[in-house]
C-alpha cells in the first residue's frame, strides 16, 4: 500500500462515517474531510507522475469542492432552517454497516479490474473509488431530504474522480476544470431549487414531491 492508496482509502472511510450520521452539518463536514483526503491523494499522485497540471487541479478541488460547496450548502441549511434528516429509510448505523459490506465487495471488484489491467498499480485507489460510488448511491437512496441527495451526488462524483486519478496518468487540465465548473453550477442551481421548494412546499422531502401543490 502506497501513500496514494492510504489517502484514497481514508477518503472512503470518511464517506462511510458520513453515512452513519443524520446531522446534515456533520455530513457536510465529513464530506469536506473526504474531499480533502481525495485532494491529498491527487497531490501525491502528481508528485509521483511529475504532472504539474494535477497539482493545480488539487488546489482547485480544495478551494471549490472542499471549502466553497460545503460553505454554500451550510448557508442554504441556515436559510431553510433544517438540522436533521430525521426520516431515513433504515437506521443510519445499519446503513453504515451495509456500506462497509460494499467496501469489501469493492475490494473484490477492484481485484478483478487490476487483473484485467496489469498497468494499474494502485489497488487501494480503485477500491476506494468503487466504495465511494456505492456510498454515494446508498446515501441518495436511503435519505429523503433534497440536501442529502446533493451530498450523495457529490460523494458519487468524488468516487468517479478518484477512479480517474488512480487508473490514468492524469487527465488534461481543461477537462477537469470543465467538470469542476459544471459541478459548481449544478450545486448552486440545486441549492437555489431547494430554497424555492422549501418556500413553496414548506418541506424538502423528495418522496412527497409528486403531489401537486397549489398556492
Amino acid at each position, binding site marked *: *500500500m502506497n*501513500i496514494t492508496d*492510504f489517502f484514497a*482509502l*481514508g477518503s472512503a*472511510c470518511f464517506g*462511510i*462515517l458520513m453515512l*452513519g450520521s443524520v446531522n446534515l452539518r456533520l455530513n457536510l463536514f465529513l464530506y469536506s474531510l473526504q474531499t480533502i483526503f481525495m485532494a491529498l491523494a491527487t497531490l501525491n499522485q502528481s508528485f509521483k507522475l511529475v504532472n504539474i497540471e494535477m497539482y493545480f487541479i488539487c488546489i482547485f478541488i480544495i478551494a471549490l469542492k472542499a471549502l466553497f460547496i460545503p460553505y454554500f450548502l451550510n448557508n442554504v441549511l441556515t436559510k431553510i432552517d433544517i438540522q436533521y434528516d430525521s426520516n431515513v429509510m433504515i*437506521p*443510519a*448505523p*445499519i446503513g*453504515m*454497516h451495509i456500506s*462497509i459490506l460494499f*467496501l*469489501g465487495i469493492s*475490494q473484490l471488484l477492484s481485484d478483478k479490474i487490476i487483473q484485467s489491467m496489469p498497468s494499474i498499480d494502485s*489497488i*487501494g485507489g480503485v*477500491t476506494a473509488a468503487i466504495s465511494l460510488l456505492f456510498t454515494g448511491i446508498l446515501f441518495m437512496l436511503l435519505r429523503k431530504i433534497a440536501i442529502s441527495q446533493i451530498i450523495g451526488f457529490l460523494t458519487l462524483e468524488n468516487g468517479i474522480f478518484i477512479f480517474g486519478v488512480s487508473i490514468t496518468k492524469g487527465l488534461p487540465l481543461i477537462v477537469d476544470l470543465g467538470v469542476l465548473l459544471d459541478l459548481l453550477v449544478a450545486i448552486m442551481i440545486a441549492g437555489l431549487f431547494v430554497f424555492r421548494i422549501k418556500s413553496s412546499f414548506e418541506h424538502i422531502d423528495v418522496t412527497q414531491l409528486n403531489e401537486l401543490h397549489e398556492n
Partner: protein
Amino acid sequence: MKYILIGLQIILSLFLPLLAIGIIRQIKAKLQNRIGPPIIQPYYNLIKLFKKNQILSHDSTWVFPLSSIINLSIVLILSFIIPWLPFNKSVFSGDIFLLIYLLALMRFFTIIGSIDTGSPFSSFSTSREVSLAVLLEPAIILALLALAVAFKTSDLFQIFNYAYSLDLIKIPVLILSASSLFLASIVEFSRCPIDDPTTHLELTMIHEAMIIENSGLNLAIVEYTYSLKLLLFYGLIAQCLTHCILIILNLNILLQSILCLLIIFSLLILTSLIESFSVKLSWHKVPDFIAYALTFSFLAVFAAIINGVSL
C-alpha cells in the same frame, strides 16, 4: 533488571488507577467552575471504606462477596497479561483470546454478584448491562483481532514489541483499533454519553445500580477493580497510539514510557471533556453509539486484511 521492572509495574498498578479517577474528577470540576475534590480523594475514600462495616442483604448468599474478590483477582491477572506500559515484561504470554475470555468471565461474575443481592434495581441494571455487552463484545473482539491479523501474532507482548521499521501500512490499523477501543471503553465503563457515573438516579443508571448493594470492604474492592480496568483499557489504547509514533520515530524505552503515560493522561482529559460537554443519550440511541465502535472495528479489520492481500 526484569524483577525491578515487574516490581515497578505492580507499584504503578496499585497507585495509578485511583489517581486516574481523581484526575478525571478534578478536570470535570475545573470545567464546571467548582473547586472540586483533591486529586488523591479516591485514596481517602478507599481508606474510609476499609474502616467501615459491611452490610449484607438478607437475601444474599456467599456468591455476593465472592464475586467481587474473583473480579479483583481477574483484573490483577489482566494487569500482567496486558502490556499497558512499554516496559511491561511478559510473565505469562498475553494472548488476545485469554484477554477476551477473562473480560467475559469478569462480566459474568459482576452480573451474578448483582443478581444475588435480590435488589430490583440490580436486576434491571443487570439486564441493561447484558444487552449492552452483547452489542459491545463484537467491537472489542474485532478491534483486537485486527491487531492480531496485522502483526500476524495473537500475543499482545509480541504485537507491542517495539521494532523501529518504517512500516507505514500498520498505522491505519493501529489508529482505527485505538479509536474503536476508546469508543468501546466509554460504554464498558459507562462514562457519560451512555451513563452518568455521578448521578444516583436508579431509573437510568447502569454500572452504579449494579454495585448499589456493595458496602464497606466490598465497595472498596469494586471501586479499585473498576479503576484498574479503566487504566488497563486506556493503557492498551495508549500503547496502540505510541506504536504509531514509534513506527516513524525511534525512541528509547524511557521516552516510550513517558510518551505512553502522556497519552494516557490526554485520554483522561478527553474523557472528562466528553463528560462535560455531552449530555446523556436516551436509551434507544445507545445501540447507535455502539454501532460507531463496531464500524471502526470493521474498518480496522478491513485495513488489516488489505495489508495482507496486497503485499
